[in-house]
C-alpha cells in the first residue's frame, strides 16, 4: 500500500473511498475490497488509536444517533447492536468497543439509497462502553452506551 493511498484511507477511512468509487459507478474486485480493510484501525489496541486511525480524532457527541444495545448482555459472546443515524448525509457507521482487545468491531459504508441503519452482533470481552461513530459530510459524530457482561449459569 503506497503512502498516498494510506493517507486517503487515514483521512477518510474505507468509507469515503468506497462511496467515491460507488458513485463513479466503478465495480471493484474482491481483492481491492479486501485491500480496503483498514489494518491500522482494526489493529488498534485501544479506543483512541482506533478513532485516530479512522481519522476521527475530532468527534461531536450527537443525540441523532440511536443505539439499540442491551443494558446487560445475556452472553458477551453474542451481543446484538443496532445503530441508526438521523444525521443527514451519513456516509458510514462504525461500531467500537472500548474494552475489547481491539476496539474497532465493524465499519459500514452507506451508499445513497441505503438507510443509515445497520444491525449486527458483536463479542464483548467484558463490560464496556460501546461507541457508534457516524461520518456525515466529512465530519464525525458519536454516541456511546455501557453494556454489562455477566456470568451466567449452566446454559439453559
Amino acid at each position: 500500500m503506497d503512502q498516498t493511498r494510506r493517507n486517503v484511507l487515514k483521512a477518510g477511512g474505507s468509507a469515503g473511498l468506497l462511496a467515491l468509487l460507488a458513485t463513479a459507478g466503478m465495480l471493484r474486485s474482491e481483492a481491492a475490497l479486501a485491500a480496503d480493510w483498514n489494518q491500522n484501525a482494526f489493529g488498534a489496541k485501544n479506543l483512541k488509536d482506533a478513532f485516530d486511525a479512522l481519522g476521527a480524532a475530532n468527534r461531536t457527541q450527537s443525540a441523532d444517533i440511536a443505539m439499540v444495545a442491551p443494558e446487560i448482555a445475556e452472553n458477551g459472546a453474542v451481543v446484538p447492536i443496532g445503530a441508526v443515524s438521523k444525521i443527514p448525509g451519513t456516509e458510514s457507521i462504525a461500531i467500537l468497543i472500548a474494552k475489547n482487545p481491539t476496539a474497532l468491531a465493524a465499519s459500514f459504508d452507506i451508499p445513497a439509497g441505503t438507510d443509515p441503519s445497520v444491525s449486527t452482533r458483536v463479542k464483548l470481552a467484558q463490560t464496556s462502553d460501546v461507541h457508534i461513530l457516524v461520518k456525515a459530510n466529512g465530519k464525525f459524530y458519536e454516541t456511546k452506551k455501557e453494556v454489562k457482561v455477566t456470568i451466567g449459569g449452566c446454559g439453559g
Partner: protein
Amino acid sequence: MADPMRIRAMAKDGEVVVKVLMAHEMETGQRKDSAGKPIPAHFIQHVSATWQGKVVLSANWGTAIAKNPFLEFSFKGAKKGDKIQITWTDNKGDKRTDEATIN
C-alpha cells in the same frame, strides 16, 4: 467449503429489509486450543451486498463480530422478485456469494 448463507430480503413500504446469517467461525486469534497453542485468527473482513450491479452495502469487519455473523440493513429502490447478492471475504481469502430473491 463454507456453508451457504441464509438471506431474507423483504420488500415493505418502498424499502427492502435484508437479514443475513453467515456460517463462519470468526476466530479472534486471541484464543488458545486445549494444548495451549494459539488458534490463528480466521474471520470475515469484508461483506458487500449488491442489487442490479450496484453496491447497496459494504462493510469491513474485525474479529469482534460474533461467530456465525448476522447483518441487517435496508435500502430503497428494489421491488419484489428482484435479486440481491451477498458476498463475504475472509482474512484467509476464502469467499462465498449467495443470492436471494426479494419477497
